[in-house]
């Protein structure tokens, strides 16, 4: 069977060579001698080349390298992966898709409204994005919302049957979901009465419409809040504005202040910030803002850049804006590394921006983390593993996709498995077919959302190059930290996953 070598060499800051092996997910300390031994072994030439290698590297080093490389080959099946690029992928049958979704679907997103009381300049619904809708006044009815819940529970019934502890994510999204608070309140009450303990709820909100009533409802139902807050007033109000162009910072802070006073425990455990930056953001000032106000501003759990694909958002940006932004990110990356190496407290904003990429190396998928056979590479979800319900009951695979390639409709019985199979076939053809030789498939973030075009999958090529570069950088950063500080503590702040202690067990 044709096999491809799937490894990526990189260096730590100390200059030490390493080899990331995508076949196992392991990182090996590397050297020219180990590389030569591996190359000769894969060529089936190890025995004959030994004398020549010993002349180059010395007997001891070759002996050690042979021991190292052969153990990795024999015990872990490292360095190469089958099938090679010529192996055709099989498209899943609709029945296989149906079974997969029922057994793996984990989250329901309710888009309760397409309206918003703000007009943030970078919003995907602002009109600056090629394939996304604009704001409308459409909202989800109570009936559609309740129907979504009941349909979802039946969809995931096999998981509920198997696992008495199973919980599912229930997210309220928009537009600004608090504009549809009546529906949210009804859904939370309905779920509490009919499906107690089955859902973990969270709402993504701009925070301007939080009132004592809305807050009490969310607290009573233990629903988490992710408030969009980009940083200090100068930064936040530059883009997060109402239709009249007025900033929203003061309103949000006022609401967060009383929320903190009224519900201190809830504040500490259930309220987070979600932050966005663009090329013009003073990232150092934002990082300082979150550090200096950590007792009054929610922990920034998500920090994401405004993307440059399929948008005219940056068309008036100065020519060097992107470069300057990247230079600042580079400085913050070095700052994060230095703090981690020295065992200092890492700034929360740095942790969630530059730190998360490094953290992802630590929590990367390993040998036994198998993906479904029909989507073996990249980080994409299987369409239907999460379901986003639009205001009209149309189903999308994610709240972040552009809405031009839905996967079903509540009114037509839910997920259209043939349609999902078709989308997977399209993704296989345009994206996965390029992955056979890729050395970073376990570290890859590409998904339907990040490769989408109009009506389905677009061109992944630019994303591929960026994924590889990012993986190489993150690997080097991670190893540079743990080389100097093997017990460096990485903060994984998340509402739904936990770092296991076994990763630290042998450190």
């Amino acid at each position, binding site marked *: 069977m044709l096999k491809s070598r799937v490894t990526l060499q990189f260096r730590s800051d100390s200059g030490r060579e*390493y080899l990331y092996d995508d076949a196992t997910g392991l990182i090996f300390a590397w050297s020219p001698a180990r590389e030569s031994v591996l190359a000769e072994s894969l060529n089936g030439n190890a025995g004959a080349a030994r004398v020549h290698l010993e002349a180059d590297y010395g007997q001891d080093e070759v002996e050690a390298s042979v021991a190292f490389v052969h*153990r990795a080959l024999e015990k872990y099946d490292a360095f190469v992966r089958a099938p090679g690029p010529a192996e055709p992928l099989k498209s899943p049958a609709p029945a296989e898709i149906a079974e997969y979704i029922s057994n793996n679907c984990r989250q329901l997103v309710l888009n309760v409204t397409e309206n918003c009381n703000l007009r943030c300049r970078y919003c995907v619904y602002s009109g600056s994005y090629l394939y996304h809708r604009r704001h409308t006044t459409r909202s989800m009815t109570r009936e559609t919302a309740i129907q979504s819940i009941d349909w979802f529970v039946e969809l995931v019934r096999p998981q509920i049957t198997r696992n008495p502890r199973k919980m599912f994510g229930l997210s309220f999204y928009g537009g600004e979901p608090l504009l549809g608070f009546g529906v949210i309140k009804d859904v939370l009450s309905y779920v509490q009465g009919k499906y107690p303990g089955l859902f973990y709820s969270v709402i993504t909100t701009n925070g301007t419409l939080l009132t004592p009533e809305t807050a009490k409802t969310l607290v009573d139902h233990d629903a988490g809040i992710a408030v969009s807050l980009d940083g200090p007033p100068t930064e936040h109000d530059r883009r997060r504005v109402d239709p009249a162009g007025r900033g929203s910072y003061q309103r949000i802070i006022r609401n967060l202040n009383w929320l903190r006073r009224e519900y201190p425990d809830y504040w500490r455990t259930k309220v987070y910030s979600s932050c966005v930056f663009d090329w013009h953001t003073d990232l150092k000032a934002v990082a300082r803002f979150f550090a200096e106000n950590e007792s009054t501003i929610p922990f920034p759990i998500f920090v994401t850049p405004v993307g440059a694909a399929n948008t005219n958002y940056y068309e008036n940006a100065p020519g060097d804006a992107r470069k300057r932004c990247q230079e600042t990110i580079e400085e913050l990356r070095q700052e994060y590394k230095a703090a981690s190496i020295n065992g200092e407290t890492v700034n929360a904003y740095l942790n969630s921006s530059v730190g998360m990429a490094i953290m992802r190396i630590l929590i990367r998928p390993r*040998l036994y983390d198998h993906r479904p056979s029909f989507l073996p590479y990249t980080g994409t979800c299987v369409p239907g593993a999460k379901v986003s319900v639009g205001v009209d009951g149309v189903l999308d695979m994610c709240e972040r996709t552009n809405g031009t390639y839905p996967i079903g409709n509540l009114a037509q019985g839910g997920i259209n498995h043939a349609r999902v199979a078709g989308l997977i076939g399209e993704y296989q053809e345009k994206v996965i077919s390029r992955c056979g030789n890729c050395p970073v498939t376990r570290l890859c973030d590409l998904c339907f959302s990040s490769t989408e075009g109009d009506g389905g999958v677009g061109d992944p090529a630019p994303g591929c190059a960026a994924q590889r570069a990012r993986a190489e950088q993150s690997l080097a950063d991670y190893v540079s930290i743990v080389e100097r500080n093997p017990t460096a503590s990485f903060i994984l702040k998340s509402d739904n996953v936990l770092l296991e202690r076994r990763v630290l067990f042998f450190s």
Partner: protein
Amino acid sequence: MNFFRLVPDCYLVEGARDGVLYDVTGNRLFLLAEAAHQILKHCEDNRPLSALENPDRARDFLRRLQRLGLGCFDSAPAYVDRLLLSAPVKGRLFERPCYRKVDWSIDNECDLNCYFCPRAKAGLSWQACQGCVRRPDNPESVAHPLNPEQTVDDIADLGTSVLHLRGGNPLLHWERLKSIMTAARRRNLLLVITTPGTGQDPERVVDLCSNSHVRLNVVVFGAGESSAKAACGRAGIYEWQTRLVHALKTKELPFFVTVLVCGATAYTKPEILNQARERWGIEPSFAQIYTAEEVDAASRSTYVGSAGKPLSGWHSPPGFYARVQWNTCLYGTFEISPQGLIHPCAGLDAVCGRTQESGLRAALATDSLYGWWQRNKETVDGCNRCALRLACTDCAAAEQAAVGRPELKSSYCPYNPDGEKRAYEHAWHHAGFAEFGVLSMVEEECLCQK
């Protein structure tokens, strides 16, 4: 080549004083003599060999380790990425428990009157789940729930493949047993029935076992009539059980035998093994129970008569990593008592749920049970200072710590990790490993055994 590091799947695990090398993919275990331990610790700290007092001697030792495939020389310090089989994160809210086996004590009634039963009289018990010792909570038959078919369905829905029925003596409730058997067969569950084999005619029991979904686990007392009589106070039990075993063998039906060793058992383990092999042609399992009065006999231990404290190989890397995370005995299982209470296992009295109030599924939805699954050796005082803690799956220490009597651990394990005598000076029973040995700086002192 001034540095040496262990390969990614070999771990130096340290205790209070000792160090042990674990080869995860090779299922090999090496106890380290003191100097060997110190050198490896030095290497794993990424320090150069030239900083050692006698680097040439260390190189000789490390060369042997390289030949054994345990580590490699390197020319520079390096970060070694340890082998993990899966990403070290878990869902906070979406974690899926994996149920391996469910024990269900369907009654608390027995036709024997053993002097150590019910378990309230016990000072020490070991592998109680394999024996037939009754729960202390209710000596009478309660037989909850009233609808056993629904309970079988609930258990099957959890994804488990084995349902283990215990008692008392489940054979005393014949009709109930048969309805459970029918439901289990419908749900494709393997039904294991632990019983002394009394209370029903052997031919009738053999007929029950001719169903391919049923396995009998016959609990016997020692290796002959005298110890059986001493244990349960009745003559003829051993002969009755022998009749049952012979009938099962004649019909070529699969079954198990568990020898319940107690203070009155007048045989050593090898004697019992030999008798079981000669008379029945089988390899029995062992469980033990001693009354509070018998505990004083310090020689009582799980490995009485064998070469040393049993260690346990992991057979596959996932088995090793399971030990790092879980209590290998309690993980994936629970017991339903005759009263419908959920316990971590048949040997523990902690209540983790009440099925009679809300049903099995609701009882399992709380966190109570799952905390027990995580009580591995790291959580047991003494064991957490033992370098062999990942090579030992003895459930007794964790159980005794759980009930507040950690001092009883010494009845089962003579090794004191804080004591003067080192691990490599003790005798260990290590049949489960592909290779086991002591590694010393002096090659002639290294004892490796397949």
